[in-house]
Each structure stands twice: as structure tokens, then as C-alpha cells.
């Protein structure tokens, strides 16, 4: 059910973009909606991150995954159990760039009906790495459409990505890896019973959206071979605040662009905020150095405690009887 809702939403959205392009609503789907989506994305993410950032971190709670720093002859696991902010930054870099925690993933099995064993399971890590890194490279490639002259690093990434030189226009490696990654993640959501059980519309929707964006991209580049010059003219105009809508842009472009706009606009209001959230995760970005450096809770407040005097007043006689020293002597009868 959740799958169908998400799939229907994405197909519907694509058709809306396609039809918009066909019925001459180029301004709306080529200029207005992408602009609004971009503003929603930027504004929304800034708000989201500021919203998180303004909430205090009352305690320094890390998840330690390696040896602590204590005795100087026992080597500390600097990246798995950082003691300084710099080490914590290193840990964060591993997490953000290489999905360190997913690299630990195991799959449990019950062998012979009674023995639990755990096998390394990197399929999720691999699918996630494929999808995210390919997506990043594809985004960088798309900068070609938004800047003139094309920045050197974009050309470089493009050349590297297309080094196989298969087909004309050349097939980029990341086109395949991106589609593969997204497809695997979707496949996993369909077939892994536990993951399927927990999946919401909001888990399928972004994956279908990415798949839709990717497939329409392939269609435009390799099957339909749309007028890329016109698209670049429109995009350049958009990013230089001089919007133009050239004639003869394929409706496919508008379908693709509309899905991308929806993705942008949807981003800050969904689980996709994990992109920014991961940087703020207290269990990963803090140093485990509480015993060395005091952490202050900004909203700390006094609490009712049971004082020593109250304790001794209640128990003085028994303490004296047991030979335990007391602060105030027993009152004589």
C-alpha cells in the first residue's frame, strides 16, 4: 500500500511536469517552480539546521566504539573513541564520507536452531555508497548547465566519469551506479521483511523520486537526445536572474526538472534532512572526554536531594551503635 502510494505520487508528478511542458507552461515549470523549490530547499535546510543548532546539548553522550584514552601505555582508538574535537572531526569525516557505522553491519542467523552467528553484511553499505556518491558526482556534472564557462573541476569530473567512452554521447559510469544503488535500496525495502514492515510512504517516495529523476535523465541523454543547448540557456538564465524560456525544449526536460524540484522542496520536511543531521549527531561528533573536560548543561537546575544531615539525623543512633563516626553527637537522655 505504502509502495503504491509513493509510486503513484512519483508517476503522477512526472506526468504533471511532462504535461506542463507540452502545454506551453515553460515559464511555470522551467523557471517559477524550480526557483521556488530551490528557495524552499535552501531556506528550509537553513531553518532546519538552525533549529537543531539552537537546541542545547545538555550532556556529552558519545557512543564509544574503541579503546578510551586513559593510561598512557594503552593505545587509544582515536577515531572510534575520540578524546579531542579534532579526533571527533576525524570520526565524523569517516562517517560522512565512508558511512563508517554501516561498514560494521552484520546479519544474524540462527544456525542449527540454537546457535546465533553474525556474518558481515555490506550490501546495505554498498548500495548506500553507490547511490550517495554517484548522486554527488551527477550533481557536480550538472553544474555544467548552470555556469559558463564550465568550471575546471566539473570538466574533470565529467571526463573521469565518462572515461569508458562507450556510446555517443558517452555513458557515464555514475549513471549506471546511481540507478543500481537506488534500485538496490528499493529492492531491499521490498524484499527484506523487517525493512518492509517499518517502511513508510516517506521511505519509498524519495527512492522512487530518485529513480524517476535518474531514468528521465537517461531517457533525455541517450534515447531522446534533447536539445541540451536550450536547456543550458534556460538554466543559465535561471541562475543569473535573467530567466528565459527558449523554444523547443522537450517536455521530458520539464518532467525531469519537475521531479528534481519536488525533491528539493521535499527535502527539508522529510527524513532526507539526515544529510545535514548526521553532522550534528551528538553520539558521533563529540569527544569522549567528560572526565577530563567538564561539559556544562545550560539549563541545569537545582534538584531536591537528601542531604547528609537529613540522613544522619534519621540514622545517628544506629551509626553510633555500629561504631560509624557521626558529625553531631547523640543527644544524651
Amino acid at each position: 500500500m505504502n509502495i503504491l502510494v509513493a509510486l503513484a505520487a512519483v508517476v503522477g508528478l512526472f506526468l504533471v511536469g511532462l504535461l506542463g511542458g507540452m502545454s506551453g507552461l515553460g515559464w511555470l515549470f522551467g523557471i517559477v517552480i524550480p526557483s521556488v523549490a530551490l528557495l524552499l530547499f535552501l531556506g528550509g535546510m537553513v531553518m532546519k539546521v538552525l533549529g537543531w543548532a539552537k537546541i542545547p546539548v545538555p550532556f556529552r553522550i558519545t557512543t564509544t566504539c574503541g579503546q578510551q584514552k586513559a593510561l598512557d601505555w594503552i593505545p587509544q582508538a582515536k577515531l572510534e573513541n575520540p578524546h579531542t574535537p579534532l579526533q571527533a572531526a576525524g570520526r565524523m569525516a569517516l562517517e560522512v564520507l565512508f558511512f563508517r557505522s554501516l561498514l560494521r553491519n552484520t546479519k544474524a542467523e540462527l544456525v542449527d536452531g540454537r546457535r546465533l552467528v553474525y556474518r558481515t553484511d555490506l550490501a546495505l553499505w554498498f548500495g548506500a555508497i553507490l547511490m550517495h556518491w554517484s548522486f554527488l558526482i551527477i550533481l557536480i556534472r550538472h553544474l555544467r548547465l548552470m555556469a559558463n564557462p564550465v568550471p575546471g573541476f566539473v570538466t574533470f569530473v565529467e571526463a573521469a566519469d565518462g572515461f569508458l567512452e562507450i556510446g555517443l554521447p558517452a555513458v557515464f559510469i555514475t549513471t549506471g551506479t546511481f540507478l543500481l544503488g537506488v534500485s538496490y535500496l528499493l529492492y531491499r525495502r521490498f524484499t527484506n521483511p523487517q525493512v518492509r514492515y517499518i517502511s513508510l510512504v516517506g521511505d519509498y517516495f524519495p527512492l522512487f523520486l530518485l529513480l524517476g529523476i535518474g531514468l528521465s535523465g537517461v531517457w533525455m541523454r541517450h534515447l531522446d537526445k534533447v536539445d541540451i543547448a536550450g536547456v543550458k540557456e534556460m538554466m543559465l538564465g535561471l541562475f543569473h536572474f535573467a530567466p528565459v524560456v527558449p523554444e523547443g525544449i522537450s517536455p521530458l526536460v520539464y518532467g525531469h526538472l519537475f521531479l528534481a524540484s519536488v525533491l528539493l522542496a521535499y527535502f527539508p520536511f522529510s527524513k532526507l534532512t539526515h544529510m545535514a543531521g548526521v553532522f550534528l549527531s551528538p553520539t558521533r561528533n563529540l569527544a569522549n572526554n567528560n572526565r577530563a573536560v567538564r561539559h556544562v548543561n545550560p539549563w541545569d537546575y537545582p534538584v531536591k536531594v537528601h542531604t547528609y544531615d537529613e540522613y544522619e539525623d534519621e540514622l545517628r543512633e544506629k551509626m553510633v551503635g555500629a561504631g560509624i563516626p557521626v558529625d553531631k553527637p547523640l543527644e544524651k537522655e
Partner: protein
Amino acid sequence: MSKFDEPDHYKQDQLLQIDWRPPRAPWMDTKPDMRPGTFIYPGKAKNLNVMGFPHARDWAVDDVDWKLPEGWQKIVLDGMAERLTRYRSFKLFMDTCVRCGACADKCHFFLGGGDPKNMPVLRAELLRSIYRKDFTAMGKIFGSLAGGRALTEDVIKEWFYYFYQCTECRRCSVFCPYGIDTAEITMMGRELLGLLGLYVNWVLEPVANCFRLGNHLAIQPHGLMDTLEFMADDIEEATGIRVDIPMNKRGAEILFVTPSGDFVADPGIYTCMGYMLLFHELGIDYTWSSYASDGGNFGLFTSHEAMKRLNAKIYVEAKRLGVKWILGGECGHMWRVINQYMDTMNGPADFLEIPKSPITGTEFPHARSTKMIHLMEFVADLIRHGKLNLDKSRNDHINVTFHDSCNPARAMGIFEEPRYVIRNVCNHFHEMPENTIREQTFCCGGGAGLGTDENMEMRLRGGLPRGSAVRHVQEKHGVNQMAAMCAIDRATLVTVCDYWAPGVKVTGITELVANAMIFTGEKKRTHNLRLEPIPGMELDESVGEGVEEGAAAHV
């Protein structure tokens, strides 16, 4: 006929019929099966009253009406709103989960039971679904389509059931790509339940005891003295040495704080006897405290405020007695509180000095703010400097493995110190499989206040992953003891081992240390601290010589 609170009641074959595949019906439409043996009895009104907690009343889990206070929905939602603005972690953990499911088969309760709501992701979704409905734009617009649901009494019952089926062990947090810490989510869930007067008595009674009498077990000061005296008698019987019991001693150099479980429960008491012998042999100037007679803190399993209220006594007592620094015994969650909360909640401890070993002169700058070090840090340093006179062969009949307790592992990272100590006092040490130790260690199934017999079925199920790993080293290496530096472990793992790996006993590390130590002026050691004969030590000549040599070397 055994009852649901006894291990015998459960057939292994039946418990092992585990199906990790979830049912067809969506989880929001599925109510928990609250059968005896899977939940813990409610907190009693008298204990809420000791703490001054609101909405004290007596009720039962199987009551249809839990007598929720008037306006309870507003109380919960206001409570959530307040916590969402106070804890960045809570807000982030509500927002960033992508439901990738990496955590699903990392929870011992899920592995041993198969209930999908024990998958950490779904445990969090129990709260997150309410969060989405009432605190997010998507949830407000799209409702259940966006994964939101209304806050009903059934939701509260479900929270109670599953937030007290989480031992806050944080294993899932190791695997989460966003570091989502289910323990913090469970803690929030329990705090919100607490706002409605809903607690479990197994947690709340210790909290009330600890508040008034300094320890969870309601041991009064004279009772504590008696207990330690009894131990001193047993120590004398085993070693011929009479140890002192410095109690509430002003001007001592070191305040020693340990979990109260070490005072009463077998085998924790042998670890406690080990502490007493160790300190006696070292001749250090230390003191016990009857007021701060528990480093353990069930407040951690109740609310942040309760934790702070119970923890306060440690620094207060250190100041009153005028000690220089604090030494902490073998406890799990106590060390989570000390390492992650104490200084923030009840510091700064600027009246104390940086811990420094009076024997080796080693300073411990990693504790320069909190001023409290772990006994294993202290002992590892002693051994490194050759300050303990050890005869490992006295532990030769022991084939030991080491269970990393959740909190020292994942809230601290004290992995090598205990191993170094064990290797120096035992000749036969075997690790369990790597996915079950260190940061990936499995909970005993009874942490976070769930170590009662009332939920025996869940404890046995939750103990399966640990039990299975113990059984593995038992069969492969002939392991017959498991060391753990946690008082809850020393209580709960006995049940787990007896059930899943019978024949493996549980021990603290200091017990092993004391059994291997050669004490000045000791009598011929024929019995260990459990007063069991030590195999191979009954023979006179060889052992006797060894002792004399050792003793001479020590002088």
C-alpha cells in the same frame, strides 16, 4: 509446576522457535501481547511519594483502566515539546532516522524474541509516530500517510511495554549510520510515562531506597557494617588476614564507591571481598561511605532529574569527608553516569585533586575534571608497575572469558584495562566471538532496571545472544567462568548462563585478582574467596614454597 518467573518454566526448544519475520498486519494495528513473564509490575504509590513524583496511585499492568490522570494527553505532548527544546539528541533522533533497518537485528530482545517492536527502529517509531503527528508539518498535513498516529491510551500501554523491554544497552547505536542512540529515546519515553505516574517498581523502589538510605537495597549503615564484617570473617577464613573496614572516615585520601549489588548478591560479594583485600594489601588510606553507599543509579532508568538527585551524594560525601579523589568499583551503569553525567550534573569537583595512585605515583589526567577513576584503571597501573604480587597458577582451574558490560563498553570504551588485568591473573583466557564483545558486546538481558524475575521470559530471550556466545567458548575452549565488571551482570548473567550455557559461573575481575594475589602474612591458601577448595593447592610442599617465595619477594 514452575511459574512464569522461574527459568524452568520455559522450554529451550520453545524459546528457540524464533521467527524474525514480522506479521502481515501493520505495526500500528498490532497490540502487544502482555503475558506474564514479559512485563514488570508497576511502581508502587508509596515509592512515588518518597520521591515526590506526581500522580502516585496503585494500578496493575493487566488492568484495562490505568487511571491516567486528567488531561494526560496534554501532559505527554507538553512533556515532549519541552524535551524537544532541551535535548538536541532527542530532536535529531526524531528527525533523521531513514529506517534503513541496520539496527533491526542488533537488539538482543529482537534476536531472542522476534517481536518486531523490539527492533530499535520500531521502538523509536513508537515515539516518532506521535512526534510526526503533532510536531511536524508533514504529519499535520498528511497524518497517517506521513507515518503519524494519534496519542491514545493504547499508545501509552505500548510505550510502557516496550520502553521497559529495552535495556538501554546502546548496541544498536554502534551500527546506526546517524548514531541514533535508542537508550536516549527509551529514556525520553520513560520520562514521559513518568509524567503520568507510570513506572516499574523494580526500578522505582531502588530509586526511593537510594534517595533515603544511599543505596538501592535499603541497607542501613549498621547493616552495611555488619555485611562487610561478615565478608571480613570469610576473608580471614580464606586467607588468614583480618582486613579493616574504614567507614565514613574523615580525612581519608580516597573515597571508594561501588554498586550496592556487591554487598549482598552472590557472586558480587566475592568481588567486594576482593576490593577489601586489595586495599588492605596496598595499605592505602581509603574509606567506604554509608551515605554514598551506592554508585549505581537507577535514576538513570527513571529520569534525568532522578539520576541527578541520586548521584549528588557522591561529590557531597567526598567534600564532607575531605578526601582527595574517588575510586569507583566494578559497575556498569554507574560508570555511564560517572563518565557521561556526574560532572555536568553535580560538578565541578574543584575541591578534589587529580587522582594519583599512592602506590605508583601515576597521575590520571584523563580524570582531571571528574576526579574519579575506575578500579580497573587503578589496578592495571599497579600491575604494570609490578606492585601486585601475583601467583596466576592459583586461578589455573579457571578457564575464563570476559563479558564487556554495555555501559563501560559503549559509554566509556574501557576495553583493554580489564583484559590486561585478567591476563595477568589468569593463565587461561579466551575471548568470545568478535561480534559479541567490545563495542559489539551483547547485553545480559537485565540491564536498565529489567533484571527482575517478573519478566523472566524476556530476560531469557534477551540473554540468548550472550548465552549463545558463552556456550560457543564453553564448547570450543572449555570456558567455565565469565568475568564481568558490572554488578547487574553478576546478578543476571548467572541466570543466563545457567539457562543457555550451564556450567559457566560468573565472577568479578577483582575476585580473580584477589584469588591470584599473594598477601603479606597470608596463611597457606587452600580455599578461594568462595571458600571452595582450590584444585592443586591442597598439596603441601610445592604450593607452600611458592607462597613463601612470593611473600618474601613482596617484603
